[in-house]
C-alpha cells in the first residue's frame, strides 16, 4: 500500500534566480507614493467632480452663446425699427392673420380702465388731449425735420369712432391688432393714410434716441401726432410673443396686462410712446414680440415686431 506523503511537496523550492529577481524588484519597480493609495478614491472622486463641473460649465456657456447668436443686435433704434418693419412685411402678413382671432379676444379681455391710465403715462406730460378731428394725419406741423433717414409712418389709418372727452374703452370691437392691413405699409381699405410727402417733415426717432433710458425693457418705438390721441391721450400696448418653437401668445397669456406702453415724451405736437415691460416679466431672448399700440378708442396706431 502506498502512503501519501504530502510533506514531500514542501521540498519544492524556488530557484535562487527567482528569489534574487524578487528581491531586486524594489530597485526596478518604484513604489508609488503612499498618498496615492491612501486617498486614491478621494482623489478620483474629486477629479471626476471637477471634470463634470468643467464640462457642465462649458456646455452651459456654449448654449448661451448659441442663443445670443440667434438674437439680433441693434446698434441703434433706427436700425432696430427698420429691421422690425422689414420683418413685419414678411412675418406679420403670413403668420399673424391666423392668430388674429385669438389676439383680438385677448385684447378685449384686457381693455384699459381709466384708473390705470394715469400710471400708464408714467408722469410724461401730455400737451394735447384733444381728439383727432380728421382722418388724415396733419403734417403741417412737422417740427423736427428728418435728415434724410427713412421716416416711420406710424400714424393711425382712420378715426371714425365718435370719441368723447371721458376715457372709455372702445365700445365697438377694436380693429384686429394683428391684421397687417393696419400697418402703414399695407393700409386698410378706406384708410386715407399714405406715407407720402406728408411724412417727410416728421421727426426722426433716431434723433431722439438719446432720451432713452438705460432701462433695457423701455424703448421708444413710435410716435404719433398728439392730436390724434383720443380721450385722455393715453396710448396702450398689447404684447404678443412668439417663442422659438411656439405659436403666438397673447399678452394675457403670459404678461397679464396690457399696460405695456407709456408715453415717453410730448414734443412739438408729437407724442412719443415706448413700450415698458415690467421688470418682473422674464424676457425670453430670441423670441419675437409684437407690440400693438392703440389709443383709447381701440384704434391701432402702430404695430412693431421686435426681438428683445
Amino acid at each position, binding site marked *: *500500500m502506498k502512503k*501519501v506523503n*504530502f510533506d*514531500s511537496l514542501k*521540498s519544492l523550492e524556488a530557484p535562487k534566480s527567482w528569489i534574487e529577481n*524578487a528581491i531586486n524588484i*524594489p530597485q526596478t519597480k518604484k513604489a508609488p507614493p503612499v498618498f496615492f493609495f491612501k486617498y486614491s478614491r478621494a482623489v478620483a472622486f474629486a477629479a471626476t467632480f471637477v471634470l463634470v463641473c468643467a464640462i457642465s460649465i462649458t456646455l452651459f456657456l456654449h448654449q448661451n452663446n448659441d442663443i445670443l447668436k440667434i438674437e439680433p443686435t441693434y446698434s441703434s433704434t433706427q436700425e432696430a425699427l427698420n429691421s422690425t418693419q422689414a420683418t413685419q412685411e414678411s412675418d406679420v402678413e403670413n403668420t399673424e392673420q391666423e392668430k388674429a382671432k385669438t389676439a383680438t379676444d385677448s385684447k378685449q379681455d384686457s381693455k384699459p380702465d381709466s384708473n390705470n391710465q394715469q400710471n400708464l403715462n408714467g408722469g410724461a406730460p401730455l400737451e394735447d388731449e384733444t381728439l383727432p378731428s380728421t382722418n388724415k394725419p396733419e403734417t403741417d406741423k412737422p417740427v423736427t425735420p428728418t435728415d434724410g433717414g427713412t421716416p416711420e409712418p406710424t400714424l393711425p389709418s382712420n378715426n371714425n369712432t365718435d370719441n368723447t372727452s371721458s376715457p372709455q374703452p372702445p365700445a365697438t370691437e377694436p380693429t384686429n391688432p394683428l391684421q397687417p392691413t393696419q400697418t402703414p405699409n399695407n393700409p386698410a381699405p378706406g384708410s386715407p393714410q399714405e406715407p407720402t410727402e406728408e411724412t417727410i417733415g416728421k421727426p426722426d426717432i433716431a434723433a431722439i434716441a438719446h432720451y432713452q433710458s438705460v432701462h433695457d425693457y423701455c424703448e421708444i418705438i413710435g410716435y404719433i401726432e398728439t392730436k390724434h390721441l383720443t380721450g385722455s391721450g393715453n396710448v396702450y400696448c398689447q404684447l404678443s410673443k412668439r417663442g422659438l418653437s411656439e405659436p403666438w401668445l397673447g399678452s394675457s397669456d403670459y404678461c397679464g396686462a396690457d399696460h405695456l406702453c407709456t408715453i415717453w415724451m410730448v414734443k412739438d405736437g408729437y407724442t412719443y410712446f415706448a413700450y415698458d415691460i415690467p421688470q418682473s416679466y422674464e424676457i425670453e431672448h430670441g423670441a419675437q414680440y409684437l407690440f400693438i399700440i392703440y389709443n383709447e378708442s381701440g384704434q391701432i396706431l402702430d404695430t412693431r415686431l421686435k426681438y428683445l
Partner: protein
Amino acid sequence: MADIEFAGLSYEQVVNKYNQTVVSVCIMRLKNWADAEDCFQNTFIRLYQKTPKINDESHLKAWLIRVAINECNNYIRKNKKTLSFEEQTNCAVEFPLDSLDVSWALMQLETKYRDILFLYYVERYKVDEIAEILQKNPNTIKTNLKRGREKLKQIYGGDGI
C-alpha cells in the same frame, strides 16, 4: 525599500521566508516552471506595490497565497489559447523522487480539488482558513475536500490520505 514592512518583516525577509509557499502554489496551478516564474515574480511585485497593511504573519502568508492564486488564474485566462512547450513535451516539473508520485497525482486532479488539498495537507490550513483564502463557503470546502480525497485515492491508489 527599507521603510516598507509587512508584519514586522522587511520585503527581503518576506521573499526569503515565503518564496517556497508561493512557488508551490504557482507550480500546482500552472504545472510548469516558466509560467510559474512569471506568477511568482508578479506576486511579489504586487506585494511591493500594494503594500498591504498586515500585522500578522499568518495573514501575510494567506495574502500571498491568495494573490498567487489570482495571478495564476489571470495568467491562465490570458494564455489559455497557447500551449506551453513543457506541457507538450510532458516534462513540466521535476519533483524530488519521493514527492513525484503524489505531486503527479495532485496535478491530475481538477483545480478546485487541487488547491484545497494542497492548502489542507501541505500548508496545513484549516477548513475555515482555506475558505477565507479561497473566498468560498466552508461547507463547500469540506465537500470539495472530501471529493478531492476520493479522487486522489482513485488516481494515486493509496489509502493513507
